[in-house]
């Protein structure tokens, strides 16, 4: 019996496209032109799946398919309109490169703030600081302000903290592409090791090349709906065939 770490049932998220930041003037105007804008659209439409410890699940889909929305619901920052998400532990998420980082703070200050945001206590950070720094290979740069960092260095810092959180569930949103190949390789190896230790990995991407190295299973989302859920190579092949079709805009992959 595999240990279930995530149970997603009938997940539905509805967005109001006209619900943007409006100025008072626009708001007043909208009051008088009611019904002019479009209705809501479903960012996620009845998505269900279960995930167990040790699995590596790739979430595939073209832009706007609902991948990031799914991750937002899974981490808990977005409440679904319908359906439920249940998790078997805390989440170590690396969703946006440098979410929570401030350019004027040093690498060390950002590291502490980011670790605190992910839930680590002062004691836990002190305990892990050396191994975070060692993994990041930033060395003396750790006391430089973040604005002097390259994108690759920011990734090193963020990734090094995120893998040190000791969360049973790890979510990564296609950020690994930024680092140089050596560090990307090191990250992938670390992620695979965490999987074999019994963590659940959820990896959002639209690049299928070499994906079977990281993940064993893939979920293909299209316009908020779950099209296919199965072994990574099978789903990746079907997804690639669909993406290669120049007429895909007029096709529904579900049919």
């Amino acid at each position, binding site marked *: *019996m595999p*240990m*279930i*770490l*995530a*149970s997603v049932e009938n997940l539905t998220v509805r*967005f*109001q496209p006209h*619900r*943007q*930041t*409006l*100025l*008072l003037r626009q*708001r007043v105007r909208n009051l008088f032109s009611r019904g002019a804008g479009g209705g809501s659209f479903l960012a996620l439409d009845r998505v269900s799946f279960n995930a167990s410890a040790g699995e590596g699940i790739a979430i595939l889909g073209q832009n706007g398919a609902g991948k990031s929305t799914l991750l*937002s*619901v*899974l*981490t*808990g*920052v*977005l*409440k679904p309109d319908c359906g*439920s*998400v*249940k*998790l*078997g*532990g*805390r*989440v170590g*998420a690396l*969703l*946006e490169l*440098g*979410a*929570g*980082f*401030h350019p*004027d*703070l040093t690498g060390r*200050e950002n590291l*502490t*703030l980011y670790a*605190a*945001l*992910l*839930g*680590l*206590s*002062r004691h*836990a950070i002190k305990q892990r600081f050396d191994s975070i720094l060692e993994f990041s290979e930033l060395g003396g740069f750790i006391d430089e*302000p973040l604005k002097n960092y390259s994108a690759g260095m920011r990734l090193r810092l963020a990734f090094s903290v995120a893998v040190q959180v*000791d*969360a*049973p569930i790890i979510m990564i949103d296609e950020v690994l592409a930024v680092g140089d190949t050596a560090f990307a390789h090191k990250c992938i190896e670390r992620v695979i090791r965490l999987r074999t230790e*019994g963590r659940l990995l959820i990896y959002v991407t639209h690049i299928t090349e070499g994906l079977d190295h990281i993940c064993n299973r893939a979920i293909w989302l299209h316009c908020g709906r779950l099209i296919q859920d199965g072994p990574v190579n099978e789903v990746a092949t079907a997804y690639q065939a669909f993406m290669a079709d120049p007429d895909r805009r007029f096709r529904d992959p579900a049919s």
Partner: protein
Amino acid sequence: MDPSNSQPPGVQPTLTSPGWSGDTSFLLYQIVLKDFRIRYRNMSLGIFWSVLNPLVMIVLLTFIFTQVFVSKTSNYPMVILTGLIPYNFFALAWSTATTSLIDNSSLFKRIPIRPELIPIGVVLANIMHLVVQLALLIVIGLIYGVYPTWYWLWLPLLWGLELLCIMGLGLATAALHVVVRDIRYVVESINTVLFWLVPIFYTFAMVPDRFKELYLFNPVSALVLASRLVILEHRHPPETLLWKLTLVSVVSFVAGLSVFRRLQSRFYSYL
């Protein structure tokens, strides 16, 4: 350690809704520290600005109201300072709290921390100004022969109530500002109005009797009045004033928090 990590391997953990778990007080401390650090980094005078600003105001107002309009108030600089300190704290903390959610959206857009911590942390970071300006108060007081007394022990209570009141206002306006981006200008305008309607460069005694009751409904006026009683007249603040302040502060905090909670679910689509 987090309980979810200490589970023996192979045992099915109970499944719960996603959320944040961790050390909330340490996170709040880090948010306060962040706000404080980024405000003073890249400045050569740093925290000295929070001394310079009231000093300029004191010199300016003293000149105008002792040389241009002649007033009979003695140690006028101390009168200004005892009014300016609570007002400055109120105005600055409230306006920075109002924009705090927008300024720090990256802290809670991807990580499910409680977003209340951000305006609360930003208000707390402003305490530093209060401490620095208190030092200024002591120095100016020594010059004008006003020395700290035991009555000053009332000040932490008064400022604590002010803090609570600002947190409530800040929570409400910060949440509203996410949805309607003109709120910060509303807050700035209210602060300008308050500068004139709070007895800062005049005393409460100069206020015509028929407006006095009305003045006491304004928590910032009540605070200035209480601070002056404590610092300049060595008297403890009247009980009714304390009760009014406590009531206003608690109501403000509870109401602010409930406005915040009501709007919270909309943050994701507005940021």
